């Protein structure tokens, strides 16, 4: 009997969330590099405390619904965290817009002025799927304003990361990605055009705490701090919301 309980203790201690106190974060792909930058800078905390899984918000949502053991979810939108709350998953008070995404139109091989492009372009334009990717929805909204004289045919990536890839590999010559990605990749500013934020619904990226850990608390506190927000800005996002945290 003593051996059995010893065995059980050993097995249980193999569960990382109990034994070594790591915080497991699921993050939308577009925010991954920003999150990594943030984690490096949290005061009095080792980066190894955090375990990051990046992916498409929809899939992460489906995984969490089915029991995936994440402690914190940084979504690319607000719907998914709300849907989780609908299913009684997550701490309602923790819902917070941690960043606002910015859309950008990228034309890596552009030689003409932007106006000429908008007037003359006929072809396929890459964007994220508007049905479930917030940047895709924003792109569609911008397109609806009649930006292009000839409505381009959409080529849909599942998320903005895949869309970025389409353009990067040259398969698309033009497409809507996130500003954050372009900054990350060091793309020169003349290759992209930033639409007015008022042309599209704000891309509000919200997080939700699923299981409270000290690691999550420290991260969120840092993201709310001046230093944290600077990092977020540098990566191409706007910050702050109307709500319980400081707005900027």
């Amino acid at each position: 009997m003593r051996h059995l309980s010893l065995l059980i203790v050993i097995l249980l201690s193999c569960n990382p969330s109990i034994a070594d106190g790591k915080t497991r974060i699921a993050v939308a792909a577009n925010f991954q590099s920003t999150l990594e930058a943030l984690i490096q800078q949290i005061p009095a905390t080792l980066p190894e405390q955090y375990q990051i899984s990046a992916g498409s918000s929809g899939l992460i949502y489906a995984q969490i619904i089915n029991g995936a053991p994440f402690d914190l979810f940084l979504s690319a939108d607000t719907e998914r965290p709300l849907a989780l709350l609908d299913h009684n998953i997550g701490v309602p008070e923790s819902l917070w817009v941690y960043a606002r995404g910015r859309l950008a139109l990228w034309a890596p091989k552009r030689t003409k002025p932007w106006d000429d492009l908008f007037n003359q372009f006929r072809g396929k334009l890459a964007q994220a799927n508007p049905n479930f990717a917030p940047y895709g929805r924003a792109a569609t909204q911008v397109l609806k304003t009649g930006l292009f004289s000839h409505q381009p045919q959409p080529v849909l990536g599942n998320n903005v990361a895949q869309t970025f890839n389409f353009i990067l590999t040259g398969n698309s010559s033009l497409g809507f990605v996130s500003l954050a990605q372009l900054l990350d990749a060091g793309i020169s500013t003349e290759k992209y055009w930033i639409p007015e934020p008022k042309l599209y619904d704000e891309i509000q990226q919200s997080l939700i705490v699923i299981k409270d850990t000290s690691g999550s608390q420290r991260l969120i506190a840092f993201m709310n701090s001046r230093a944290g927000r600077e990092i977020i800005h540098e990566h191409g996002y706007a910050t702050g919301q109307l709500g319980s945290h400081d707005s900027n």
Partner: protein
Amino acid sequence: MKLSTNTATQQGSLAHMTATDINAVLVTLQLAGATTLILMIIGTPIAWWVARSQSWLSVLVSPLISLPLVLPPTVIGFYLLILFSPDQPLGSFWLQVTGDTLAFSFTGLLIGSIIYSLPFYIQPLQVEFSNIDQNLIEAATTLGAGPSDRFFNLVVPLSTRGFLIATTLTFAHTVGEFGIVLMIGGNIPGETRVLSIALYDHVETLQYASAHFLAGGLMLFSFCTLILIHIINKGSLTMVSAGARKN
């Protein structure tokens, strides 16, 4: 903008989705059908050569053909994405000839599917071919039958089982293709939006009822395919080939 999960909206979405889903079914069937047909034409001689050749070259070719079995489809898709790029020779050639990219086109998917399903066509057929009694082929030769005569009038009738399994597997396997389409498809309705992508979309948009519907249909299809292959293997459809087994 809260996506609702109440039943009424689900049913409404269900009705709406069905039309586009039918479209996805059609694209899928076209893709699977075209892939199977093309593999029948190019895969059959390859399977024959690998089965009968004594040269060292066939030792190299066989694992190459099996490669798509072990490579993750996303890897294949990734390399195709690069290969199809207009910055590369193939992609730019295609662009010049058709004015369009290979990626995000049905043709691009077709190329990807052919690579993806290649071993599923060739291997069952190759096994069948290598089981054909060499003596029968020699007998046909001495009776005056040349190579293509022997192939069409002796080998093919003796290999019906192999052909049936190869085409069924290829078709079914292509129907289930996802990773490659995800990488290079672009989700274009009527052209590259296949069933597996449609299913993925439903999951992503939290339309689980539609997702269940599609997934259930795909499951049923796969199950029927397996039953069919089981029947073929048992020999109820082709009894003749049994006589030519080498034993």
